[in-house]
């Protein structure tokens, strides 16, 4: 039957591709005697940062390779490279995947390499997200509090301002709804968005107390958040669809969706993707459950790891420290185009504010807003050991819920049920709560 060979061909191609790209040797010529390290990232502007670093000194020569983003094959490439023994010295890992790569031994324990000077430069909440059982595994580059991006012109047409609480959010959703448009789209492909709003409400999906992974996806706070969004969906106040494809693009592009809940970085992405909507957007703090005790979760953000087999961990660490804390690094990254990355080193915020072109957001000082929001990031959140898989099952459930089968809470419970076997097979100590 012809299906079998073709299946093998696909697999073979899939397996060969990372090998083929990983085997081709790095280019560029290093100055004599310099330590040569390699760096992989999917982040835009990384080449500019690497060039700036190589110009700034002559002891370390960084060779950069742009790789696909994590879910597009970047993470698989990294895992395979480590297994094959040809991993880069420095790799880029997003927050949710840090524990997984730490457990797999891809990210090296760098506790002893992270000096007090670097620690002092970083936002403590950000560093705690990459610290497990007292050991540091990666260094945060940016930390992205979730904010409300909204269309000022369309809000004004309905006589609305940005909602400050989730009750107001519902009220605004009722007010602005018409036969074509809605306030927001609930992202059925956005497990990280859902995680961020649950995080804000006080959810604790994972924690590592007592030397075990305590899993509790459907805790009280998450149930509240799931119920809230289910209500909005059932009442027809929000769309429920994938936001990363064409449909989501069209909804924003045609003004069918008036607002978006995402990390601070999304401002830059918006500027790049839709230059025609210049001056129509503003950013507001995320609506709160209790304005007296404001909190937010984060959505997005990257960290840097030194890989297990790196021959030059000190040099790798020096490069990482420069990347996350030196003003020239941020300037180089921002020079590549439009970015609104919120640095995890608070000293760099001023650099970002100056470099950012405010005209798109009608002169709004969005970095000032991010600064106040970053301080509200609820401390104590921990990502799980197989977060990509957990998120994917969650999204599968969201998609089914949007097609009328099951609810958002069912999706959360299914995600927990499908996560436990993974952890069990990895030999981790686990406990389950509130399923």
């Amino acid at each position, binding site marked *: 039957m012809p299906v079998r060979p073709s*299946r093998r061909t696909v697999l073979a191609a899939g397996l060969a591709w990372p090998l083929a790209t990983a085997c081709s040797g790095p280019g560029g010529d290093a100055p004599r005697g310099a330590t040569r390290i390699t760096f992989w990232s999917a982040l835009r502007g990384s080449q500019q940062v690497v060039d700036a670093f190589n110009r700034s000194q002559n002891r370390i020569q960084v060779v950069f390779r742009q790789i696909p983003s994590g879910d597009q094959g970047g993470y698989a490439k990294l895992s395979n490279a480590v297994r094959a023994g040809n991993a880069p010295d420095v790799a880029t890992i997003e927050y949710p995947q840090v524990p997984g790569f730490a457990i797999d031994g891809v990210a090296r324990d760098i506790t002893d390499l992270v000096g007090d000077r670097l620690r002092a430069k970083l936002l403590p909440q950000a560093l705690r997200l990459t610290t497990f059982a007292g050991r540091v595994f990666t260094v945060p580059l940016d930390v992205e509090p979730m904010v409300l991006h909204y269309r000022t012109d369309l809000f004004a047409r309905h006589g609305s301002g940005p909602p400050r609480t989730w009750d107001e959010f519902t009220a605004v959703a009722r007010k602005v709804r018409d036969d074509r448009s809605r306030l927001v789209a609930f992202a059925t492909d956005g497990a990280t968005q859902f995680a961020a709003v649950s995080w804000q409400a006080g959810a604790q999906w994972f924690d590592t107390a007592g030397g075990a*992974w305590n899993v509790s996806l459907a805790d009280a706070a998450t149930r509240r958040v799931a119920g809230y969004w289910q209500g909005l969906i059932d009442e027809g106040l929000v769309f429920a669809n994938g936001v990363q494809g064409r449909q989501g693009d069209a909804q924003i592009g045609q003004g069918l969706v008036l607002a978006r809940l995402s990390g601070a970085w999304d401002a830059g992405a918006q500027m790049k993707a839709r230059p025609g909507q210049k001056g129509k957007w503003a950013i507001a703090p995320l609506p709160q459950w209790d304005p007296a005790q404001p909190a937010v979760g984060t959505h997005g953000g990257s960290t840097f790891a030194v890989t297990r087999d790196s021959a030059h961990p000190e040099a790798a660490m020096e490069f990482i420290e420069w990347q996350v804390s030196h003003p020239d690094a941020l300037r180089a990254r921002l020079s590549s185009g439009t970015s609104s990355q919120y640095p995890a080193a608070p000293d760099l915020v001023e650099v970002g504010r100056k470099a950012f072109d405010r005209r798109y957001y009608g002169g709004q000082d969005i970095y000032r807003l991010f600064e106040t929001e970053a301080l509200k990031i609820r401390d104590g959140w921990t990502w799980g050991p197989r977060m990509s898989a957990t998120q994917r099952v969650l999204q599968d459930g969201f998609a089914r819920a949007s097609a009328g089968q099951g609810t958002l809470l069912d999706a959360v419970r299914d995600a927990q049920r499908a996560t436990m076997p993974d952890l069990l097979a*990895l030999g981790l100590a686990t406990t389950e709560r509130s399923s």
Partner: protein
Amino acid sequence: MTTTLARPESASRTPAPRVRTRHRQGTACAVLMAPFFVLLVVVFLVPAGTALWLSFFGADEPGLGFGPEHTIFVGFRSYAAVLADPTFLGGLGVVALYCLLYLPLLVVTSLGLALLLDSGVARLRGSARLALFLPHAVPGIIAAIIWLYLYLPGLSPVVDLFGKAGITVDFLGIHTVIPSMVNIALWSNLGYNVVVFYAALQAVPREVIEAAVVDGAGGVRTALRIKTPLIRASIVMVVLFTLIWSLQLFTEPMLLSQATPMITARFSPSMYIYDAAFTRNNYGLAAAASVILLMCTIALSYGVTRWTNRTREAAQ
């Protein structure tokens, strides 16, 4: 084959030919069968053995998992994890449903077409056979791409046409993805199975058919009561092969999953294994799931063979 080659030589020359002939036969046997055994070992036994080993051993770190790794024997832990995973069991359910739809449809349709071709009712037999067989020459992944194009709203002329008639169809909806995949498989494999059945029908002795006609059986009756029981062995073979092929459902859902969220990353057992190994980096889990799938396949094949043997004996 070897005996016919060796005989004339041994008869004409050596006085004590027996031992040497047997020796030569043994060598010829070994040479001719070596490729088979080499391939069996390299592409089946070694991978299966590796999977078995992976499923019973794990690189463990105690507690939270951040410490140094040690490879230890973990017993049936990975198996317990797979069997406790609702997504794996869901995948088995999907495949069961797929088989339930696909198997009868494929067997009945291809048998019907083969009988039609054989009966002489159909004109242009040669071209009909070619037309039916042609899709089978299209590799599965290409077939899936073609059908994906026909299923996707916004791209598909079919969906467009229905839309103009005021009918909204969603071929990739929550209840339609499995029938849509059955359709792709049917399109690909129908012709092949028609040819298998048609070839078997050619071997049915003409006297038997003539006797049936003389006894007054019509065309339909001859087809159903005489010809079909006589090609029973082919039917069993087709059922068996299709069953094994269906259990490994992978290409079509993998490709369609790009276009619809209704096909999850762990939609079928094969996709579960792929996902466990390559996106979850959980090789123990993937290996255990592979072994379980292999066991299921062996058990089902054995069951089908036993069941058909028993019914045949009962019939006789």
